[in-house]
């Protein structure tokens, strides 16, 4: 009886693992297949060099660059916000805060990541943008600046939580050695603990970037839906994810070239996040070897 139970449990665990793999493979192959058929109609060179993205207009252009810069611009702004704040929080929590404070504040911070992104999107649109318009007169109602800032706030816990884990994992002996030579807490934090935890911190940043690149709702709501090749953070732009939402919600006929643009854009996005995840996996593996 017991044997049968074990057998059933083991096999059902195995099958859920297999289902997950099958779904992943399915998604990637649909993505690849549709993207492939897109590139039979649009040259891959045009795709990467054309500076306009207007597949829904009569004069059609299929240059991914505007979407790509939109994505990278909002991501860059988000990281510029999340990195200093997230890192400061993690250093404070691991090197200064009393244990009890650390224990309560960490889960609270992680709540930031649990707020629905649609809420963040509206926050950016109806609070942050009007606020910023008081200081930046030319700021459009839709812009990458407020979307990026709010996205940065959302990913703070990605940076702070993982970095804090890495900082906290630095052996106490290294801190004691530093204090023992007359270093202050600040010197110990920045000259010993942060460098020793650098791989873990880098991983946290990569994951945060990856999260920002894939973020959809905030940028779709607050950054606008106008593909534009620009690095100006005050004007409307469109990110890859926002474009995909726009087309998916529209009434583009299934199987048309317009429809296939989603997959071309999607596979570009996938390539980015896949690269970032692989990179962080590599670094983490190396890091683990170093401390064993």
């Amino acid at each position, binding site marked *: 009886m017991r044997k049968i139970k074990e057998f059933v449990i083991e096999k059902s665990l195995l099958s859920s693992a297999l289902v997950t793999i099958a779904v992943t493979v399915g998604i990637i192959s649909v993505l690849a297949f549709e993207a492939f058929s897109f590139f039979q109609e649009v040259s891959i060179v045009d795709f990467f060099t054309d500076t306009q993205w207007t597949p829904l207009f009569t004069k059609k252009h299929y240059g991914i660059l505007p979407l790509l810069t939109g994505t990278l611009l909002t991501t860059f702004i988000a990281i510029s916000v999340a990195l200093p704040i997230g890192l400061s929080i993690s250093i404070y929590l691991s090197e200064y805060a*009393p244990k009890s404070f650390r224990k309560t504040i960490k889960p609270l911070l992680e709540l930031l990541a649990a707020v629905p992104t649609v809420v963040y999107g509206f926050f950016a649109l109806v609070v942050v943008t009007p606020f910023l318009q008081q200081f930046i007169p030319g700021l459009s109602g839709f812009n990458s600046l407020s979307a990026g800032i709010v996205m940065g706030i959302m990913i703070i816990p990605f940076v702070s939580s993982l970095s804090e884990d890495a900082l906290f994992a630095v052996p106490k002996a*290294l801190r004691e050695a530093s204090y023992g030579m*007359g270093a*202050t807490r600040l010197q110990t934090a920045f000259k010993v603990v942060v460098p020793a935890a650098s791989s873990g911190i880098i991983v946290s940043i990569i994951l945060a970037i990856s999260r920002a690149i894939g973020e959809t709702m905030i940028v779709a709501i607050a950054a606008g839906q106008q593909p534009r090749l620009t690095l100006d953070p005050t004007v409307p732009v469109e990110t890859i994810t926002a474009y995909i939402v726009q087309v998916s919600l529209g009434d583009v006929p299934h199987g048309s070239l317009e429809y296939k643009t989603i997959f071309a854009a999607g596979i570009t996005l996938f390539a980015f996040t896949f690269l970032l995840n692989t990179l962080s996996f590599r670094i983490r593996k190396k890091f683990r070897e*170093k401390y064993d």
Partner: protein
Amino acid sequence: MNVIMTENTENLNTEDKIAEKYKLQTKDVNVFYGDFQAIKEVSMNIKPNSITAFIGPSGCGKSTFLRLFNRMNDYIEDFKMEGKIKIDDTNIYKNKIQLEQLRKQVGMVFQKPNPFPKSIFENVAYGLKIQGIKDKKLIAARVEKALVQADLWNEVKDNLNKSALTLSGGQQQRLCIARTLAVEPSILLMDEPTSALDPISTAKIEELIHQLKKEYTIIIVTHNMQQAARISDYTAFFYMGELIEFDKTKKIFTNPDKKRTENYITGRFG
């Protein structure tokens, strides 16, 4: 962290007269971790340029007591100490004392070698750089001097930029000693500095400690009776937080006053 000061002026005056003879003085020191008392009424005077060994069974408070001298216990949340500890006539538990200044004067070597994941050179230069010393020539000279003192120079002089983590355990421990010496303290605290090392590295470090005595006042915690007998001038025997006996090493090992000390040294308990 809580420090309760017992200000006894009468006592101070008589103490002052003999103070210059001693590098380090403790008076009626009690240490608590929460409700647990780890050190009970310990008074002890240590002469300059001497080597003092702390011995006693595991958990008797040797490390706790040693770490009082550079206030390393301050980071423990429920740590509390009472009594007085003076170094060169300065009460180091006075509130206005600067921890950073104190630790430049009182260096510490730990049980497990703990080099920074930096180059050999950067490890030794660390203490100087955090003091704000920028003169590259001066730093290089002090690094070399410290590595020579720690008897490591010949082994690493061609590889100063290699990671300290590539060194052997014994070399790492000598690097940690060099790192401490580079700051030029006057007191060296060593908490079982050879317990993680092989006999050859151990012998090297013992020889080194002997050399350093000329310039430093050294306190060493050890579980190795032969080591205490070989290298120290004075030995303090602790038992359950109390200082049972403190005397010349020769006396402790040949003719101790207390039965407990004799039992411990001869291995009848521990």
